[in-house]
């Protein structure tokens, strides 16, 4: 900018697109502290997403179903491949794994209450199984993680399914760090660690190293649980075709695919924003792997990472998923980032909608904390009701779309019901660009 030395037109101050205000602030922060930024949540950058897809409602060539009158079923069965007791969910949306430790006991209870009211499942997390969650979740999936915090065979047996976590979308290939301020006496005891220290969650499982070992690990877990429980395998989206194929080959009943918009309790911002795939780009390769193995619909695919609505759910199902999972959206339903706490967010140097320092344990909404006074702000009954309402709305929204597409079950949605608004989305989702029958990579352009 040139200083206004004489009257006349002046050059306006211009912010750099490359060195924008956020980038400059980050460089300044890094220069002052010498450490990268750690935060919770998933990728915040703009990514190709379900918003870039639209449904083609029925018209003359397709026949719609009557809203409020004709059935559009939503049930899903998970784990029928090899487990004696597959789980049945009334709706194809589940609650993703979130740990006690990252979340308060009340928040875990609220998730259990809400999911149970809605007829679906919750998932434990990297801290073991709490009584709050087991007691209030009619269907509970027990995560088997690299850290093995709190892992024990009794909880394995009282779970309804077991989810072996290889990775998560926010940080495929990365472990975790729960900072000491959240390691309360109870959290420490559950994890066999001293109170108040920073605790690391490993990025690799301690007793196996590759897909052949995973097959043996699955066999061990099945033998311990009498081949009763469905075995899920969860991966962060990075090489979905191969990872899903290997998980199926290793014997998974269900595969869970988490995109980079999926949240974490705490990881480096640079990791969250720069590693992994948006979920939109990961679904079709995963479905392709299942189809190539003859396992589509036999091994169920659950996708997660940025699912916010019934429309997102319907689009994921249309692309071939059997169910979706929500994490961040569920926390928001409980009250996370609610504008009602704006004054307190301001005191923390942030604002509602942007609060992501979940690792610091000072959550005004009382969800991502172990502080008893803050945690007490969340009434698990009220929170559970709110979550159940949200799940109900998601389901109603997806049904409304599915009926408009002429589908009597959400699983009857198909790629042919979708078009893409952008070239990027068309390429990633392998869905034709709107107004054409072509997507990048398909011959005939």
């Amino acid at each position, binding site marked *: 900018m040139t200083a206004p030395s004489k009257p006349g037109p002046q050059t306006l101050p211009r912010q750099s697109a490359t060195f924008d205000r956020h980038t400059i602030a980050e460089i300044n922060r890094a220069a002052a502290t010498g450490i990268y930024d750690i935060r919770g949540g998933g990728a915040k950058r703009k990514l190709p997403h379900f918003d870039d897809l639209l449904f083609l409602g029925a018209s003359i060539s397709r026949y719609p179903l009557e809203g409020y009158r004709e059935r559009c079923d939503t049930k899903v069965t998970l784990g029928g491949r090899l487990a004696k007791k597959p789980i049945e969910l009334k709706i194809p949306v589940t609650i993703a794994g979130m740990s006690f430790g990252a979340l308060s006991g009340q928040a875990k209870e609220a998730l259990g209450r809400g999911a149970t009211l809605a007829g679906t499942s919750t998932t434990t997390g990297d801290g073991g199984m709490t009584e709050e969650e087991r007691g209030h979740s009619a269907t509970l999936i027990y995560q088997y993680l690299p850290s093995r915090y709190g892992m*024990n065979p009794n909880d394995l047996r009282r779970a309804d399914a077991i989810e072996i976590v290889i990775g998560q979308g926010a940080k495929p290939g990365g472990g975790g*760090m729960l900072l000491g301020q959240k390691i309360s006496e109870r959290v420490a005891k559950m994890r*066999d660690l001293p109170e108040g220290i920073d605790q690391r969650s490993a990025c690799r499982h301690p007793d*196996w190293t590759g897909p052949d070992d995973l097959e*043996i690990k699955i*066999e061990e877990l099945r*033998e311990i649980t*009498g*081949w009763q429980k469905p075995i899920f395998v969860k991966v962060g989206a990075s090489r979905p075709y191969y990872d899903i194929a290997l998980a199926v080959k290793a014997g998974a009943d269900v595969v869970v695919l988490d995109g980079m918009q999926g949240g974490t309790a705490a990881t480096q911002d640079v990791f969250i924003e720069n590693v992994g795939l948006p979920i939109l780009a990961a679904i079709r390769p995963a479905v392709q792997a299942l189809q190539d193995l003859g396992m589509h619909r036999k091994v169920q695919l659950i996708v997660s990472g940025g699912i916010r609505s019934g429309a997102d759910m319907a689009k994921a199902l249309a692309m071939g998923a059997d169910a979706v999972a929500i994490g961040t959206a569920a926390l928001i339903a409980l009250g996370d980032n609610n504008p009602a706490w704006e004054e307190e967010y301001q005191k923390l140097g942030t604002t509602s909608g942007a609060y992501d320092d979940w690792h610091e344990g000072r959550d005004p909404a009382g969800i991502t904390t172990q502080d008893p006074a803050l945690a007490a702000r969340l009434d698990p009954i009220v929170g559970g009701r709110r979550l159940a309402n949200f799940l109900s709305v998601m389901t109603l929204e997806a049904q409304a779309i599915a009926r408009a597409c002429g589908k009597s079950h959400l699983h009857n949605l198909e790629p042919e019901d979708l078009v893409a608004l952008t070239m990027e989305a068309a390429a990633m989702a392998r869905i034709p660009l709107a107004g054409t029958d072509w997507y990048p990579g398909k011959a005939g352009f």
Partner: protein
Amino acid sequence: MPHSETVDLASVPLRELHEQLHGLPADTHRTSWQILNPRGRHAVAVGLDAPIRVRVRGHVGYYAAGMNQKAIVTIEGNAGPGVAENMMSGEVRVLGNASMAAGATGRGGLLVVRGDAGARCGISMKGIDIVVRGSVGHMSAFMGQTGNLVVCGDAGEALGDSLYEARLFVRGAVKSLGADCERKEMNEADRATLAALLLRAELSEFDVRDFALYGSARSLYHFHVDNVSSY
């Protein structure tokens, strides 16, 4: 000596073996079992939860006696990776050698290896006691949280890397210590703990005065930029 019940894995499926063992009540009188022809099978005698004695007559593959509770399992041979992984209580004795990750994430009980143990013995241990008559491989007790690892032979590279509160007793040479692991002074209580473990492991021929104790320097307990070269 009670009558020993026999399951021959040459003819009985593994699933059937576990159905029998998992179905035993806590006060069972069927307390003595032997398993024939394991032939390197994986996941043999896993998830036991009764006060029984099981002798496995041969070599086993991965995860033998995994997640054991209450039972005393003796493996008359070598064990593959992850023997007694995540053990909660009871005892597992390997009369031969054990592969990598022996006793991984164990939360209780006693694992005895009469031969050597491979890499990452006691990785992420959470309360288990492990006694190895021979030597252990590299990265043993990596991220060990609680419990005791006793090595009557030598320890490989990076012993006790990123250690929490697990205690490591080594009689022989330590090739190198991992990040945040340091030698500690042994006091009377430590010597008593070690002596008791050697006694339980039936290795009282070793003199506690010949062992050195290693533990966490606790300098990495709180993430700090000054320690970044250690991470």
